[in-house]
């Protein structure tokens, strides 16, 4: 039924989730979250979800923890600021209420999972039947870019708008691109120069393999953004790229996605639907440009975190 690996992995997830919630030091909380990401990636591999595990490893653990660690290391707040707001008279009251409420909610919901009748969703059959019409063979890429294209469009738009928002928060014209990074050991630039070609190759492979196998625009964009962040951390000059190319790259994916969606109505099809004849070309073009936009957006998040106006 259930293997000891699953039992241990589940217990480890709970333990590390506690580690990323309970301690009072920002650094410990952040490191706990990093470890939680790694464990959850392993859980998803156990559950046969290779695509999601790749996405979690790239976006969830890699980039998110990069942002968090940067925030924790650079934040002016002293360690120990992670405490709860104590009520003035009974300092134990809020933690106690929190623990009791959490325990009750967990027991009730877990009881639901244990008692509920197990039925599969009804969309499984139709998805399998219509997958050949999307032009790609891999189910998840097909769902993301054909069946739920509207969702994916809005999702890329959210990343674009977030990047626009953080750019607006830093008020000057991406001055961070010229700001110097803290000194790093000499080994890092060497390692970066060796790693970046491999990372670019991996990103492109994830992108093009996405039509047949696990991979796709989001995983690929995360790997490419990680290559950019590594290059920036090891003092490789990206000023020209950041100043002139980052913003066009940010919007090109969403714009081309919308334009490709408009081809449908001109040919008498519904919006955002691809004809099987040219579906593969459309999906591939959109996916390549979307990857550019995702990488640019993720890199922008890292870049603007450095010194938003007001932090001096």
């Amino acid at each position, binding site marked *: 039924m259930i293997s000891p690996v699953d039992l241990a992995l589940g217990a480890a997830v709970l333990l590390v*989730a506690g580690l990323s919630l309970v301690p009072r030091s920002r650094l410990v909380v952040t490191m706990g979250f990093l470890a939680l990401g790694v464990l*959850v990636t392993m859980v998803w591999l156990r559950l046969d979800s290779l695509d999601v595990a790749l996405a979690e490893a790239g976006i969830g653990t890699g980039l998110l923890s990069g*942002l968090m660690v940067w925030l924790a290391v650079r*934040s002016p*707040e002293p360690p120990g600021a*992670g405490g709860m707001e104590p009520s003035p008279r009974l300092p134990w009251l809020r933690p106690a209420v929190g623990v009791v409420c959490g325990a009750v909610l967990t027991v009730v919901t877990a009881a639901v999972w244990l008692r509920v009748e197990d039925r599969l969703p009804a969309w499984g059959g139709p998805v*399998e039947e219509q997958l050949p019409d999307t032009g790609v063979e891999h189910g998840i890429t097909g769902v993301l870019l054909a069946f739920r294209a509207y969702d994916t469009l809005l999702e890329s738009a959210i990343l674009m708008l977030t990047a626009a928002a953080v750019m607006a928060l830093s008020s000057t014209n991406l001055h961070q691109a010229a700001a110097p990074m803290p000194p790093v050991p000499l080994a890092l630039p060497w390692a970066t120069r060796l790693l970046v070609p491999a990372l670019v190759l991996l990103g492109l492979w994830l992108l093009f393999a996405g039509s047949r196998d696990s991979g796709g625009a989001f995983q690929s964009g995360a790997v490419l953004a990680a290559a950019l962040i590594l290059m920036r951390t090891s003092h490789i000059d990206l000023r020209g790229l950041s100043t002139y190319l980052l913003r066009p790259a940010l919007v090109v994916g969403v714009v081309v996605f919308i334009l490709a969606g408009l081809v449908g109505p001109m040919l008498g099809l519904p919006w955002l639907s691809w004809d099987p004849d040219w579906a593969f070309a459309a999906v591939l073009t959109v996916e390549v440009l979307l990857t550019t936009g995702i990488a640019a957006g993720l890199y922008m998040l890292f870049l603007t975190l450095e010194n938003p106006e007001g*932090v001096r």
Partner: protein
Amino acid sequence: MLELGFDAITWYLVISTAVLMFGMVRLLLVRDLVARLVALDVTGLGVLLMLVALAARSSDETGAQAAETGAAGPDAVLQALVITGLVIAVAFTGLGAVLIRRIEGAKDTEGSDSGEESPSTAGERDRDD
């Protein structure tokens, strides 16, 4: 107490519920902004864990039912939803992180007169006590 007759998917569903609930409770109670952001992410991770566990049921069913529904491997629709969720999580965390930097930077310069340093010294900035 739970009997040990349940399968791995139910086990992960229970785990994800616990992660989700305690992330949420911590999110509501904690004061520090970074800890709040991490708690929000842990809550999101609990939801995603739940969705992947539900998706894995499709590949876990026996051959008869799999042939009936035509599904092989985990549910692609739910997995695509989880990838969407991961990207959204990065988006809100990035925005939240930059907002925290802005808020705490403003707090930092309010108490001191060193607000007019050049951006290049930001790395060496010490906290004013």
